[in-house]
């Protein structure tokens, strides 16, 4: 028990250490590399910070919308009256998942015009599925006997949902949310194609102008950000996992 818990924490510590080490390596590399004026210009600390903030804004706003949308819908879809829609909706969503993210983002730009909002909506569409699916799976995998036990001792359906089903579904739901967040970080890099901001611009600029340093910095920062978000997600999962399961 205690041992497995420590093992899990150890993994988390390693992951964070790895991320920090990679970040430090990047910083040291940037400080020691010979940079052209253009590179210096693009990689100025406040510019970098600005891109990162934009990237996080995109990611987090989309995440909030996704959570606000997917969790209630996921819950509703597991309630008896709507249960029969579960299959079709998941099937539809699964097909949707195969849609390439770039394509979705670009299509939204057609519809909503360029910029932040098109990017946000694209991200939301892209990340809704994992959260929705995990919410449903999480609720479905709750041992029906526990639901029955709850009902059997006189809890109302709502009480059972909030006191039994949701707490027990939390681990699965959180892992869906983590997956979604990580997807969001990665996909937000594509926002640059439609002037949505974020760190993706470093990658496109790096490629377009053959500025390897910029390209690598952009790519590594996006990857590290994804790993960091993943790490945060894992920590939350770890802390929020109800004791006893």
């Amino acid at each position, binding site marked *: 028990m205690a041992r497995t818990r420590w093992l899990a924490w150890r993994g988390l510590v390693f992951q964070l250490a790895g991320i920090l080490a990679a970040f430090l390596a990047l910083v040291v590399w940037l400080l020691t590399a010979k940079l052209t004026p253009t590179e210096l*210009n693009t990689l100025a600390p406040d510019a970098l910070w600005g891109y990162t903030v934009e990237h996080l804004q995109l990611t987090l706003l989309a995440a909030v919308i996704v959570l606000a949308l997917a969790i209630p819908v996921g819950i509703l879809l597991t309630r008896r009256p709507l249960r029969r829609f579960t299959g079709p909706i998941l099937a539809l969503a699964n097909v949707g998942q195969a849609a390439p993210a770039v394509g979705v983002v670009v299509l939204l730009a057609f519809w909503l*015009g*360029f*910029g932040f909002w098109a990017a946000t909506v694209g991200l939301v569409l892209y990340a809704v599925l994992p959260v929705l699916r995990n919410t449903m799976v999480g609720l479905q995998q709750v041992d029906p006997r526990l639901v029955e036990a709850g009902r059997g001792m006189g809890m109302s359906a709502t009480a059972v949902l909030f006191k039994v089903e949701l707490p027990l579904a939390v681990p699965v739901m959180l892992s869906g949310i983590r997956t979604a967040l990580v997807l969001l970080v990665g996909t937000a890099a594509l926002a640059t194609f*439609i*002037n949505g901001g974020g760190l993706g*611009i470093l990658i496109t600029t790096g*490629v377009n*102008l053959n500025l390897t340093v910029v390209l690598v910095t952009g790519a590594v920062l996006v990857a590290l950000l994804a790993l960091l978000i993943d790490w945060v997600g894992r920590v939350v999962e770890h802390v929020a996992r109800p004791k006893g399961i």
Partner: protein
Amino acid sequence: GCGLQPATAFVPALGPGSITPVSGVDGAELTVTSKNYTEQLILGKIAVLAASAAGFTVNDLSNVPGSQPARELILSGQADLLWEYTGTAWLTYMGQTTAIPDQQEQWQAVYDIDINNGLTWGAPAPMNNTYALGVRSEAVAELGGITTMSELAALPVEDRTFCVEAEFNSRPDGLNPMLEHYGLTRGAADGVPDENVGIYDTGAIYSATDSGACNFGEVFTTDGRIDALDLSVLEDDLGFFPAYNVAPVFFTETLTQYPELMDVFAQISPSLTNEVLRSLNRKVDVDGEEPAYVAFEWMKSEGFITDPA
């Protein structure tokens, strides 16, 4: 390997026209590259078709994102052929600061430098695809009937909004030096603050400008959408931009092996006038045709190639 080819590698099948198979080629491989905007795609396809007609097995590496990567490919010999602009080479690659007004001299200047870089410039075309700032016509009046770039400085700061591509945003012949040239400072509160500059994909600038996402879009003068979207072009009244005549650039080693290539492209270059390019670009950008077909039709109509037997 394994039958996989780059994304935009498709070209229609063709038969020889005035370009005929070069003896001794026998399906030797030739890699053509191009940048990733319409004119370059069409030119790239023209090169691919021409080389195919000349008997080469063409590896189509067109649609490379950005001038620098394309230049890199040909410098390193990964590609054998690229349509390049004299002004771009002169200012961006060769680091020169002042352009040469005479177009032929400009060509000669870049030829002389690049010959030492293992590249050989072929005959230039008459067309000149320079940068310009486009304004949606409806907005001209709001902006005080602006017609020249020197009037930019007179506009209130919040009206000095620009849509540019990543490349233009940081080129030596791009946005910042241009603004400087017209007395504005990029990033300064009383010049052009950063938030006034939106970065778009090269081809996306036109509709962004037209939809009012910014007042001034960085446009290419041979682009068909300037007319189609009714954009007004500001005059480069202080002469910032050089001449950008396009010419085929060969990897010299390849050219030495197949000197006939030079003649093949010498046939084509003279036909590439501003009008021709504008109409070809228009077919793609406005009429929605595919660069490969547009190039094919044009080559056919010029008699360079024919339909397949």
